[in-house]
């Protein structure tokens, strides 16, 4: 789960990482209330999960309440790289002397943690990595060793952070590491980490990705899950417990298993079509799950055909077949459905479906044949 900046800062604050005082707002009125409780000058920041907010005009300085009103009005509803701004974060403006970068994430090849620290913050770290790779000082951390204040102190010196920032930066970095590990983050990044003109080090931005597998031990994440999904289709799927990602095409996809679902997207493209979604119904594909999946895919107005690709392992194909029949009874499916059913009990499953097959429910023997059929149907002119 990717957090918005304001959520990331709230999370940082729990771990004692210094951030500027501020508040969130979803309306202009809320923005005014937040601003009244803060000391000017303020900065009004669009909350979107995409870089380049500043350039797009999504970050504005305000010296007065009137300016807060103007900026809040302008920024709310603004489109930044395809993301609509629904929320603002308003905080005390900082006088920046220096901008640094620090992050922790998993070093997958080496199966340890990797910290990255740079005195060149405030720009995309990928740009620094390309143009001046020596400016990024990497630190490999074994999860069993952790990060001590001594190591952090040496690290900030190695990265050549300004003398006056080092002590505070080292302490902050240890807290960020704690947040990364104990807070179950996949990524904890501060860019920029700033030194103010009056010598204070704090996080000016927050980029945090939480590991949803750890949700069970973080009740404090609950408040953020509501803002996690903005795509209406994804929100509906999430409510039904489905693993769904909305895409732009016209062939709706229902498959079991993440790999097979990904592969289904690929073969649809190879057949000349485009997938409307990724949807993995997982292991126990029963009637309820299949009905839910059909409902979600069917609700997408862009969908012109539905490709159900099932390889029974633990999932028994006869159960899937019952699920499809039940789903057809419960949901009025507007697009033709192409089935490819293989694996455990496939023969029984196909036999169950046989009497239900018609122009709107078609069975194909292989994944490729089914993909071609689904793509053809999606391209055909819509009847009625």
């Amino acid at each position, binding site marked *: 789960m990717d957090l918005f900046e304001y959520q990331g800062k709230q999370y940082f604050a729990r771990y004692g990482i210094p951030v500027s005082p501020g508040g969130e707002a979803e309306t202009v009125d809320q923005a005014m209330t937040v601003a009244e409780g803060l000391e000017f000058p303020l900065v009004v920041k669009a909350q979107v999960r995409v870089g380049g907010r500043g350039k797009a005009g999504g970050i504005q300085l305000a010296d007065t309440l009137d300016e807060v009103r103007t900026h809040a009005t302008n920024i709310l509803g603004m489109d930044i790289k395809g993301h609509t701004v629904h929320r603002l974060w308003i905080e005390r403006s900082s006088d920046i002397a220096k901008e640094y970068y620090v992050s922790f994430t*998993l070093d*997958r*090849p080496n*199966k*340890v*943690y990797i910290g990255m620290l740079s005195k060149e913050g405030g720009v995309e770290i*990928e740009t620094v990595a390309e143009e001046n790779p020596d400016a990024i000082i990497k630190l490999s951390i*074994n*999860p*069993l060793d952790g990060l001590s204040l001594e190591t952090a102190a040496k690290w900030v010196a190695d990265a050549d952070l300004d003398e006056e920032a080092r002590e505070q930066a080292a302490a902050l970095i240890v807290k960020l590491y704690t947040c990364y*590990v104990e807070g*179950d983050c*996949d990524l904890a990044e501060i860019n920029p980490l700033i030194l103010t003109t009056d010598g204070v080090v704090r996080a000016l931005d927050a980029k945090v990705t939480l*590991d949803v*597998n*750890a949700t*069970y*031990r973080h009740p404090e994440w609950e408040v953020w899950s509501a803002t996690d999904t903005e795509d209406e289709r994804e929100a509906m799927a999430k409510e039904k417990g489905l*693993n769904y*990602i909305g*895409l732009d095409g016209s062939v709706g996809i229902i*498959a*079991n*298993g*993440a*790999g*097979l*679902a*990904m*592969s289904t*997207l*690929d*073969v*649809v*493209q*190879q057949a000349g079509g485009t*997938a409307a979604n*990724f949807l*993995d119904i997982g292991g126990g594909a029963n009637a309820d799950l299949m009905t839910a999946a059909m409902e979600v895919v069917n609700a997408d107005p862009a969908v012109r055909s539905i490709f159900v690709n099932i*390889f*029974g*392992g*633990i999932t028994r194909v006869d159960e899937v077949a019952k699920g499809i029949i039940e789903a057809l009874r419960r949901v009025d499916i507007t697009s033709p459905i192409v089935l490819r059913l*293989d*694996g*455990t009990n496939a023969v029984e499953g196909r036999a169950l479906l046989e009497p239900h097959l018609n122009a709107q429910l078609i069975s194909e023997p*292989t*994944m*490729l044949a089914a993909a071609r059929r689904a793509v053809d149907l999606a391209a055909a002119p819509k009847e009625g």
Partner: protein
Amino acid sequence: MSIFVDENTKVIVQGLTGGQGRFHGVRNRDYGTKVVGGTSPKKAGTDVEGIPVFANVAEAVDATGATASFVVVPPAGATAAILEAAEAGISFIVCITEGIPAHDEARCYNILKRDFPGTRLLGPNCPGIISPGKCNIGITSGDIALPGGPVGIVSRSGTLTYQALHELSQQGVGQTTCVGIGGDPVPGTNFIDCLEAFEADPDTKAVMMIGEIGGSEEERAAEYIAHHMTKPVVSYVAGVTAPPGRKMGHAGAIISGSQGTAQAKMDALSAAGVSVALNPTEAGEKMVAIVKSL
């Protein structure tokens, strides 16, 4: 021959008395796997369809001489179960549990590496391992596999592993061993471990490798293949059409920036001399052609 397991491998099931543990443990036993026991702290002394239940792994090992373990324990207790098995002297652990926090996996992996270098972990979040006709530890349906070799399969994805087995078995091409390494960010066993074992196994004549988006394991495997593999490798990488920044089901399957794309992986594999297929069916066809020409 087979890799990592064979017809003599004795297996215990951690979590045998749970719904999933019972289902898969009994299914593996019925396939012919030597499932010699299970563990459950509260149900020691009972049995599950004739499989004796012990209080802990150490007691199970003492009583049965098991060397392998099948961990079917919910996410919150899974890494503790893995470490318990390692401490009891188990040398091969298969963990199918999905949804273990990444930090738990990272800690568990590094403890195994530091304290139990002789123990191999397969998974977590994997379908397991099957050596057709000999041993099946995990959730793969035994009837889609065909004994006799000569193909070794290694895969990051569950259902695509079944698909690969099915494509080959349908054509009458058997498998020596099929290993599902799982789609999590910190897998205990990676592609290279399996490629190395297949290269050393005299009965395996060719290898099928199924990858997916995310990480750089396929690229690393490509480098290994280029320098160390003499046997032909066919590969398929799922997720050519996956959008960046979205987790495609598996915790590890995510394209971040320009890292982890299917195309980059396919290019690296092609450059290493691997025959790269665009879909699972084509991978099966390419492998059948290779086996026929052997």
